[in-house]
């Protein structure tokens, strides 16, 4: 029976508490600042809490730039990209883990190799491609380049390989072909991995900044991150309250989604650290 060192535990708790406060602090400040009257910033006074609740800052932010469009665009793009990635990756992962064909392992390594290419290299040629295809300022530009991901193929293959062969053999004996095995056996058993990867994919798509910044110019087609950036372009250092209100509006959806699906996100992150 091991004795718990209560003093050490207490100290640990206090440290965690302090770190936790420093994590939450900026969020509180963001909300507090968004409720201030804008001139409060330029006066010497101004304590921790705003003097009044100026909810009109939110209305201001919402109407200055088309937040409704931003929200809709982000949702549409992220949902489609997530489903797309889940589908293409699970297909490929199934092929790599459950099938045998010549060149399988070599091809998998080739897939992995594409993960080493940083987005900054491909973004210029892809931008040129978008220009040629006339996909600038379109949903296609935001969705199509992201439908396939080697990352997903890798993660899901690792997971699929842990599913016992007996289940698959049983299905084969019943006369099932690969498609049936895929969607009747493998997919149902992979729910945890799929939802974890799905969460990460969604997060990545939602917060994507550089690519939409390049490829979307029309304000009504922007996604939330670059929409928020345009709000900063209009209010700069002159009106912090409205800018903070905009930041809250932009950050809220993902935070809410995260709170409801924390387990999936955290599992997804942990998955990424798994090496074979």
């Amino acid at each position, binding site marked *: 029976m091991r004795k718990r060192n209560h003093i050490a535990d207490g100290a640990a708790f206090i440290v965690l508490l302090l*770190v936790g406060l420093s994590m939450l602090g900026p969020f509180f400040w963001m909300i507090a600042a968004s409720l201030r009257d804008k001139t409060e910033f330029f006066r010497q006074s101004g304590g921790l809490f705003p003097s009044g609740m100026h909810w009109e800052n939110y209305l201001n932010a919402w109407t200055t730039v088309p937040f409704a469009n931003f929200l809709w665009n982000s949702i549409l793009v992220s949902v489609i990209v997530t489903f797309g990635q889940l589908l293409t990756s699970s297909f*490929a992962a199934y092929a790599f883990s459950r099938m045998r064909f010549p060149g399988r392992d070599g091809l998998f390594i080739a897939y992995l190799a594409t993960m080493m290419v940083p987005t900054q290299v491909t973004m210029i040629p892809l931008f040129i491609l978008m220009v040629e295809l006339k996909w600038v300022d379109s949903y296609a530009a935001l969705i199509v380049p992201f439908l396939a991901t080697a990352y997903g193929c890798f993660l899901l293959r690792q997971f699929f390989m842990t599913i016992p062969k007996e289940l698959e053999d049983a299905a084969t004996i019943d006369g099932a072909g690969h498609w049936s095995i895929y969607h009747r056996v493998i997919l149902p058993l992979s729910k945890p991995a799929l939802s974890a990867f799905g969460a990460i994919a969604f997060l990545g798509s939602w917060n994507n900044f550089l690519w939409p910044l390049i490829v979307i110019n029309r304000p009504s087609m922007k996604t939330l991150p670059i929409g928020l950036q345009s709000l900063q372009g209009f209010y700069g250092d002159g009106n912090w309250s409205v800018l903070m209100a905009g930041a809250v509006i932009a950050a809220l959806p993902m935070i809410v989604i995260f709170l409801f699906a924390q387990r999936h996100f955290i599992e997804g992150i942990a998955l990424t650290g798994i*090496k074979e």
Partner: protein
Amino acid sequence: MNAFSNRIVRRDTAVASAFLAPSFIGLLVFSVIPIFGALVVSLLQWDILTPPKYVGLANYVTLWEDLTKGDTLKRVLVNTVYFTAATVPLSMAISLMIALLLNRKLWGMAAFRVIFFLPSVTSIVALSIVWRLLYNPEHGLINKMLMALQIPWVSNGHITFLPLITNPPGWLGSPQWAMPAIIIMSVWTGLGYNAILYLAGLQGIGSSYYEAARIDGATPWQMFWAVTWPLLSPTSLFIFTMSVIGGFQVFTQIYMMTAGLPTPQTEVYVYQIYTQAFTNFRLGYASALAFALFIVILIVTLGQLAITRRWASTGS
């Protein structure tokens, strides 16, 4: 190999192609071909509105000249290395500490995990905006707190309180503090993410190791260095590599936090690529810069693979 297995393999190949087609096409068109595209563009001079001009290796020559004789690229590289060299160890150390504490399974662990992870989930655009206000020299919380720190002092027989810091840093507007400001913010943002990774790694260490160490009479400090740290090395290496690669690619928070302010001390490599490509419309030169970045990242990744392989084979 008999006829039967040949047939199975053939059938598998056909079906496999169907399963692989979507990802294969996607990766080919949007990952592989663009690499060659980037190389091709780097040999051109193009401003997107007029037809491109073939210039051979001129862009690379310009790159080299700016690197050795000019000052922009040198400064940009130094900034990028400075950023990476500061954020990676800081982030790893602090997140390891957090993971170790979380691993004690105290009360409220789940809540802590959520709180620490919150910054990683929030759009870094929104976080940049908040931190820009936090760093505001006169109205931001950080300087307000710094200026509120006071030390007791004895003067004329009474105890008075004097402010500890009379000249708080100018943060984003000041040459020496701009990059540290961004470093602090970046570390803060990534802590939760790395802590979760470390936590997963820690939980993968069997308790038998610790038992053996305890039997040998090891102190907690020794246990850390003899058991925890070595067994965490794959995780550490992974985090290290990801963080270094991420460090070289940093863009968003710099773009957001220094918007409208002069950026010589905080301009990093990807920011330079972006500026050359989409502000100055020198797509060829920007592509050359990007390709150079690719080579560097490739070397780092291959290095990590090699080390992992060596460790795996020697069973370290």
